[in-house]
């Protein structure tokens, strides 16, 4: 009986923590989702879906510090917003741009050219990177998630995660190279 009571108290505490996290970050998530969906209802749905994921991965959530937690939740929300947008769109223009520009998966040139200002250019290119690739990059580099963890969060296969990471890198390198070439 004591064990049941203890477990119930512990789970009740966890539930309250999740509710507190929701209260703390729901507007932030809504704001971020709106920048993607441009639609209030879709953005709200994205927030709801994001917190379904938060509940599923609450052990991970509770292990994060106060700096990582907002990043984690916002990244999940962005992913859900993007998923909802894709479902509602017949064809994603953003996807077309990136998919069509990927002519080859090979690293194309013999020598890589990185300008002294390359980092700033890379940063600028990051801002315009497709959300699909940005989300996996953020999960990898900002949230330090493993490929397995990313695949569970995004409900895609490990191979899919690796492909997205590879394509994001390849595309950025190509664009970086072509930018430098154009400026030369």
């Amino acid at each position: 009986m004591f064990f049941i009571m203890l477990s119930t108290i512990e789970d009740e505490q966890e539930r309250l923590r999740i509710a507190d996290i929701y209260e703390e970050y729901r507007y932030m998530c809504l704001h971020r989702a709106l920048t993607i969906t441009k639609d209030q209802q879709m953005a709200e749905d994205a927030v709801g879906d994001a917190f379904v994921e938060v509940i599923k991965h609450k052990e991970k959530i509770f292990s994060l510090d106060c700096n990582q937690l907002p990043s984690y939740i916002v990244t999940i929300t962005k992913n859900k917003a993007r998923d909802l947008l894709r479902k509602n769109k017949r064809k994603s223009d953003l996807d077309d741009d990136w998919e069509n520009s990927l002519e080859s998966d090979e690293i194309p040139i013999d020598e890589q050219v990185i300008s002294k200002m390359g980092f700033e250019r890379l940063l600028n290119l990051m801002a315009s990177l497709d959300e699909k690739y940005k989300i996996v990059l953020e999960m990898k580099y900002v949230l330090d998630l493993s490929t397995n963890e990313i695949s569970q969060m995004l409900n895609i296969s490990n191979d899919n995660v690796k492909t997205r990471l590879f394509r994001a890198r390849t595309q950025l390198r190509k664009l970086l190279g072509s930018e430098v070439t154009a400026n030369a």
Partner: protein
Amino acid sequence: MPNIILGNLENNDSLFEAFLRQAVIINHQNEMAAIPPRKELEKMYAFSNEHNLRMKKLFAADKRQETFAVVIKCIKVAVIAACVSATMLFFTLLTSADFRKAVGDVIVTWFDKFTEFRSSQGSEDFTERDWSPKYLPEGFTLVDTIGTTGFMFTNTEEVRIIFNYKEIDSSTSVDNEDMKYSVIVEDEIIYHLFETIIKDDKYEDNVIVWDMDGYRFTVMGNYNIDELVKIALSVN
């Protein structure tokens, strides 16, 4: 501004990877910093009633799922505790020499259609003896011997009962197809009963197997199992 050409692809990969990591982190930080503070957001936006209701249900469902999970967890703990207790009791009983003798001497192996009895150890107390049942059901008489350690009894209806014994070193197999298995323990001896479930079949025998004093005994016959048990118990 001159470009820096890095001829080694591996170095390029490492440098690009380092740049990319930093660019992703900084870009994310910039995005997060661009989000207005909470108080301002609360003035800018309002959640719909539908959304608030959905979230309320979500947390309620989570609570129900958690309660269910707790109940399942407790049941599992109780089952594990019961199994551990039973195992501990079993091993405690094994400290008793009599229990060990009753349980540990015979290895019973169940196969698809037969059961094999083997001894786990040799017969330490073995002394050569002659055995015979002291009880026979009414109307049964000895009609034949089977070697030096087997007896066949029949009655006027030509129902046959066989009593047999041999040293415990060898194995004994019993047909277990269409048989109901049970066990009787009497005077620290385990009697293994195989009773046919096919009634009124004069070709199916009931069988009793037990070990005692270095010997393995068998009583079998197409006859009432209780009577066969009496025969077995009368052997000394």
